[in-house]
């Protein structure tokens, strides 16, 4: 694996240089929020951030995406593909937990049985550059409980680790190696790798928030009807904050919007927290209340995904914990389930 060193203050310059060549998604400070957005000309990326407000999943799985366009004509429907074809892009500076989420989303969108062309096209054209958490940003981070690590190359093509005065740049995949020219020519020495090993261990130890994420799977297998499910949702507002900010939540809705003879078919985020979620055309909803919706959310992350892909659909970023308006804490839910 190719490894190099770059000076810490060179990072923003590299991102900006890349932005001249292709689409670069980078953390940008917008008023009080840090968001992953396409880096505009003259804009400064903001790498001194804890983590972004929104998960960068929108790069591959946007909130709203046009699937097809169509026009009704006398000769029948004329279809056209969306002009927003996937472009060469770089996702610059995502945290290890968020990069981990891409590996999890790949299992679903790019599996043997179903291939999601829209997702895959963007994923293939985008190089993911991770910015490891040498110091875990939040007290509520719990990546180590859900098969993650604060410094990890999982889901990344290039991994950047702050080793003091420099960043150690590791080109993890062939896709990452294609971008070596942007990172100078200082080869990493043995000392910097030793330093990284120390940092990895230290960062891992610094994650204090732990949840029994693996322990709950056999319990969930047997407790679909447990009265426990009635204890979570009372205060839930049924808003979509947790699912919209979540790096792994991926439920979507498909709808047609038609004006005159022209129509578009849109895919947009759905949320299991919405009362409309899984509501059928007849008006019937198999999930009758927020109780069933919360069971779905928990089961999906800690049971169904494990059943289907042998992986927990949570990366421990803590966004839902920190942003839930009524402090419904997934860590506590998992903890409580482990005691059932």
């Amino acid at each position, binding site marked *: 694996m190719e490894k190099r060193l770059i000076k810490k203050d060179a990072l923003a310059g590299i991102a900006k240089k890349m932005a001249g060549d292709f689409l670069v998604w980078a953390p940008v400070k917008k008023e009080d929020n*840090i968001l992953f957005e396409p880096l505009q000309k003259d804009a400064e990326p903001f790498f001194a951030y804890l983590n972004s407000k929104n998960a960068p999943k929108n790069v591959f799985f946007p909130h*709203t995406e046009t699937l097809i366009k169509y026009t009704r004509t006398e000769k029948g429907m004329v279809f056209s593909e969306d002009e927003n074809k996937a472009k060469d892009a770089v996702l610059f500076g995502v945290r290890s937990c968020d990069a981990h989420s891409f590996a999890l989303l790949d299992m679903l969108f790019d599996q043997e049985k179903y291939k999601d062309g829209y997702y895959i096209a963007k994923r293939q054209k985008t190089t993911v550059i991770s910015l490891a958490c040498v110091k875990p940003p939040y*007290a509520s981070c719990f990546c180590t409980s859900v098969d993650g690590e604060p410094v990890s190359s999982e889901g990344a093509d290039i991994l950047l680790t702050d080793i003091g005065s420099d960043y150690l740049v590791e080109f993890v995949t062939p896709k990452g190696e294609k971008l070596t020219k942007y990172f100078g020519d200082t080869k990493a020495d043995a000392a910097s790798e030793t330093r990284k090993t120390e940092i990895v261990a230290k960062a891992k130890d610094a994650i204090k928030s732990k949840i029994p994420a693996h322990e709950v799977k056999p319990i969930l297998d047997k407790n679909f009807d447990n009265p426990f499910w009635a204890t979570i949702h*009372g205060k839930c507002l*049924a808003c979509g904050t947790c699912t919209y900010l979540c790096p792994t939540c991926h439920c979507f809705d498909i709808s047609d919007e038609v004006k005159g003879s022209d129509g578009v078919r849109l895919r947009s985020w759905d*949320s299991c927290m919405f009362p409309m979620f899984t509501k059928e055309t007849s008006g019937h909803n198999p999930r009758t209340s927020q109780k069933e919706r919360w069971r779905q959310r928990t089961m999906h992350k800690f049971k169904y995904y494990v059943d289907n892909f042998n992986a927990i659909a949570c990366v421990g970023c803590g966004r839902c914990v920190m942003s839930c308006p009524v402090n419904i804490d997934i860590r506590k839910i998992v903890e409580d389930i482990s005691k059932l």
Partner: protein
Amino acid sequence: MENIETKLREEAKRLLLEKKADVIIGYEKGTLPLTATPCFITIPEEADKLVWNDLCTQNLAKFVHDLITAHKNSQKRVKPEDRKKKVIGIVARGCTTRSLIIHLQERQYARDEIYIIGVPCTGYVDGKGLKVAISGADIVEGSIDGGQIKLKTSDGDKSVALKDVLSDSCKTCRFNNPIISDVMVGQNAPAMNHDSEYNEVNEFEKKSVEERFAYFTKEMEKCMRCNACRQACPSCYCPTCFVEQSQPQWVGIGENKTDTQVFQFMRLYHMVGRCVDCGSCVAVCPMGVDLRKFLKKIDKDGWELFGNRAGSSMEDMPPLGKYDEHHDKEEFIFNP
């Protein structure tokens, strides 16, 4: 505060023991530092969980409406003579009681279906504002003592004056003490700085149409359509919001700029005479959209044009909820 908390717990216990209420909606300590979260107490022993402090954010009236609606739905198939009444106890400060008044004026439930435990309020901490005050650092631990918030953060120890990080709604609140209550816990709190409640709106009104629209556009671009504002609002209780209606479809489902604007301004206009400036929508918004600027303008218009402040008294009906020749300014309504 602690004294109020003790009394509040005693009162809640008494209500449950005497079966004067089936559930008490209040606040308990949250799992994150410096947070309180809504809770539902149904057995007297649990009343000790209740807290009352500067971190109690949500307007709990929303849950009153939810619980009563759910209860009424559950009674629909029960014979009228066998139907049970459910009484909801609620810990309510000024703005919460205003929302309850609106529910009562709009005949959502009867006065005897709720039991109001009034609490004095000196304002709650704006969580997002506090984050900004400490430059976005992560709060590891925190406590409030003598008007100072002391914090252990990812950026070291910090201290912030409580009055600086109160919610904007609280800083200029006109009704911080309960307007109606069945029992009052603690003495009324001193008035907040309500003389300046419209300062921001006055400034905003001076701007040109283009500038105001540019501000509206900028704020609405932050919105990700999670619906948290609507869901937290006690006045947003339509069984099906227009946003979710499909025949006809009023608003597109996606993250379209215009659709988002339509959702937001339609919601804003549904708040005429119904927004109590509790700040819940602002507090829950994950993206920090400045909804209050527009809601406060609507509130100001309600006061200046109709002499009404939403939910400020049981007798004073909201401008869109009363029709009589003594109050309607426009003559054409009666002499077309």
